[in-house]
């Protein structure tokens, strides 16, 4: 399938409509006054100066809210406007509505708040130290909470797999063990489109919302819950998403703007400046992971412990799953045969930015820790990085550490592919050269709920209405291609139309590597329904309700080739080779961009991205300080596809969206050790850390 993507022309000519492009008649603009302290009690709020500014329509605080004040994706602990106690610098304490965005922003700065400062918890360790500052008195009381009083204070979620006792017993008999602690920083999804929304509440109780949100049906449900509105009266309108990577799943400013639209009886628009987006949205959890791994004489795993402490920030409400946890942490050993494995994934409240989901939640952190530790063990035991992985990668028919038997395991094959590519990169003269490998495996998601409608118009055109937001991954193009091949209709006779939540019954939202799977199932069902439709009907509507084949999953092996300047510690990643386990590919170009984009994101996480969180502040206050990889920074990207796998669904596919960004950190860190002998256990990898390591003989 090589026809151009469905949205290409609209995006290349600038006519595609994003949330910030929406303008409604009579629309006013909102801006928030955010907390001046990471931890404080509000003593008083004086809005008079802000109200005096010409163009200000109203200034509102918690006491004005027309509905509930708490929202969240699962745990409802996030206040729309704080009434009493602020818990981080992004907390909203007041909101301004004005005739222009600039006036609203200026007025928001004029709101005078007096605070009584409280001690702040600035890192995850302090949150669980004896007698910590308690951030939420009774977090277990929040709707959707998984925290329990017996877990102690400041716990957002605690997920445990396996038995620590058994794992330690197994480790005590190991021939070789490694024990080390690894650190990763808070990160931002780095989408280029800052979060924005337009909310229009009508006096008849109906609500229309345009928002940078990838889960329209979930958003509808959440807003209904907070404001006591019938979700059927809430319509989430279709807009194009300017990047997501997990960051566009939370309600963002929609709850606030809903309140403001109800209060002012106007459509309300709020668009974050990127600086505010960096401060006040929900990025990737900073992690501290203590790993202990052991092998027997031959090199087989005997067991391991994996204790992760994650900084969840001020609220738990940005994580969408029922466990309120990051399954990437729990799944740390999924690629391997691992007899006794204990995982503890503890997410704590602090006064930092609350964290949510970012591309493969938990996995980049877990893979960095696990695959680095495995390399250290390979070195210590003398097996080396390849042999120790070969010894332990699962073979077909085996059961993984979580009790699942996948349809197939192709870790050994991708490992061989990644390590057998010719070396064509040039090493700068005098620099040290090294290679590092990392494996990442990911289980296939369940078939997500989605729906679509297929209608034949009188002119012979087929209109496919879909509920999936287009976040760039190309889901709508996949729909068209499947209809084209399935029904034998030319592309120009097919129109794929993203519709509002009022037009179709359901969708699970974009994310979790499930779009292609959900779409292929839904479209296959629609094609079947279309072919079997009763005579005289020109429209069919289907909803997915399938069990997944499997369990199954996919492997990705990454090899990093690096060079290090021995005089400075400067690291140049020369090449990232991604060997990827695939079945059928629905759209080759989109598939390749998921791998390239993933590897570049993994590269960024490894060597530069960092919110610079310290002292309960985000010091990366603009994109000038929060660095994302640019075209000149890039290593050579090489992809090797291991085709012919056993996929799932009607199109026999394996997910790819969250495969190539996870192992990259460890692959690069392992390559640095190979080049210099220096072991880096903290991301991002800084030239200075390598330099100091070389000077101190750290290895």
């Amino acid at each position: 399938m090589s026809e151009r993507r469905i949205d290409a022309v609209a995006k290349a000519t600038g006519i595609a409509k994003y949330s910030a492009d929406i303008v409604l008649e009579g629309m006013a603009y909102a801006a928030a006054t955010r907390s001046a302290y990471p931890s404080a009690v509000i003593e008083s709020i004086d809005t008079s100066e802000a109200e005096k500014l010409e163009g200000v329509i109203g200034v509102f605080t918690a006491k004005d809210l027309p509905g509930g004040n708490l929202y969240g994706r699962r745990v409802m602990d996030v206040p729309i406007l704080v009434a009493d106690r602020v818990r981080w610098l992004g907390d909203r304490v007041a909101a301004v509505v004005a005739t222009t965005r600039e006036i609203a922003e200026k007025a928001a700065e004029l709101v005078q708040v007096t605070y009584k400062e409280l001690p702040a918890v600035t890192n995850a360790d302090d949150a669980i130290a004896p007698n910590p500052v308690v951030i939420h008195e009774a977090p277990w009381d929040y709707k959707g909470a998984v925290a329990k009083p017996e877990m102690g204070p400041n716990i957002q979620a605690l997920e445990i797999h396996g038995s620590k006792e058994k794992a330690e017993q197994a480790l005590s008999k190991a021939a070789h063990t490694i024990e080390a602690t690894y650190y990763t920083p808070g990160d931002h999804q780095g989408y280029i489109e800052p979060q924005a929304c337009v909310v229009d509440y009508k006096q008849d109780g109906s609500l229309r919302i345009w928002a940078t949100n990838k889960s329209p049906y979930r958003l509808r449900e959440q807003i209904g819950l907070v404001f006591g509105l019938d979700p059927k009266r809430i319509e989430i309108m279709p807009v194009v998403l300017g990047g997501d990577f997990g960051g566009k799943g939370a309600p963002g400013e929609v709850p606030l703007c809903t309140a403001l639209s109800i209060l002012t009886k106007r459509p309300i628009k709020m668009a974050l400046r990127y600086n505010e987006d960096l401060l006040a949205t929900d990025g990737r959890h900073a992690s501290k992971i203590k790993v202990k791994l052991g092998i027997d004489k031959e090199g087989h795993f005997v067991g391991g412990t994996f204790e992760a402490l994650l900084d969840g920030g001020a609220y738990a409400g940005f994580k969408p799953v029922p466990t309120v946890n990051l399954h990437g942490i729990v799944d740390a050993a999924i690629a391997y045969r691992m007899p006794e494995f204990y995982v503890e994934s503890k997410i704590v409240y602090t006064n930092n930015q609350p964290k949510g989901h970012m591309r493969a939640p938990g996995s980049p952190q877990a893979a960095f820790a696990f695959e680095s530790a495995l390399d250290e063990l390979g070195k210590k035991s003398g097996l080396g990085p390849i042999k120790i992985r070969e010894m332990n990668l699962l073979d077909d028919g085996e059961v993984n550490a979580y009790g699942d038997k996948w349809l197939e395991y192709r870790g050994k094959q991708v490992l061989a592919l990644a390590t057998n590519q010719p070396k064509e990169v040039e090493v700068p003269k005098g620099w040290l050269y090294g290679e590092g490998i990392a494996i990442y495996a990911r289980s296939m998601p369940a078939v997500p709920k989605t729906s679509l409608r297929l209608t034949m118009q009188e002119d012979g055109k087929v209109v496919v209405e879909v509920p999936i937001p287009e976040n760039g991954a190309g889901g709508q193009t996949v729909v068209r291609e499947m209809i084209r091949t399935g029904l034998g209709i030319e592309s120009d006779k097919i129109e794929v139309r993203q519709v509002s939540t009022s037009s179709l019954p359901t969708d699970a939202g974009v994310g979790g590597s499930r779009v292609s799977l959900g779409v292929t199932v839904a479209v296959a069902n629609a094609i079947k329904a279309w072919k079997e439709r009763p005579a005289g009907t020109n429209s069919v509507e289907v909803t997915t309700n399938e069990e997944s084949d499997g369990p199954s999953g996919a492997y990705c092996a990454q090899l990093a080739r690096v060079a290090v300047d021995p005089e400075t510690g400067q690291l140049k990643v020369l090449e990232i080779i991604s060997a990827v386990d695939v079945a059928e590919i629905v759209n080759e170009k989109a598939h390749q961009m998921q791998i390239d984009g993933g590897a570049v994101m993994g590269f960024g996480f490894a060597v530069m991205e960092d919110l610079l969180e310290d002292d309960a502040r985000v010091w990366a206050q603009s994109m000038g300080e929060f660095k994302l990889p640019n075209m000149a920074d890039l290593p050579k990207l090489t992809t090797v596809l291991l085709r012919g796998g056993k996929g799932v669904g009607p199109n026999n596919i394996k997910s790819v969206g969250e495969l190539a960004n996870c192992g990259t950190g460890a692959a690069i860190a392992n390559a640095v050790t190979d080049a210099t002998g220096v072991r880096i256990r903290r991301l991002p990898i800084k030239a200075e850390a390598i330099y100091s390591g070389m000077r101190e003989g750290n290895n």
Partner: protein
Amino acid sequence: MKINFTLNGKSAEIDADPMAMALDVIRDLDLTGTKEGCGVGVCGACTIMVDGEPVSSCICVVGTLQDREVWTVEGISEKMPDLIEKFIDNEGMQCGICTPGQIMAAAAISSVDITSEEDIKKYMAGNLCRCTGYQTILNAVEDYLAIN
């Protein structure tokens, strides 16, 4: 204040606060292809072309556009269809939010000396993309330069 300039090949007169940012003024003219990204001149999503050179419209005071020749993606789509075509053919985009800026940067690439692929990368490095991994964007720019 009245500001006169050439916008997408046609003379334009606008009445605007001269200290407003060009990005906001242009978008208010319903030319919303110019996108706001970082807001600090780093990401390139708001790139426009002024007198043949790439400019960050988010940090460009509109009063400074008096008498100058300004192009946005809407105008470039008509003026340089082969450039647009190369981005479409190569799928030099995913979410598309950076795409108009990438295209505007590419449209102004003749303002600098390009003699190698490294030169292209250095020039295009000012336009961030979080989706594609840049390979398809680089291909699009190279294909465009090959025919121009």
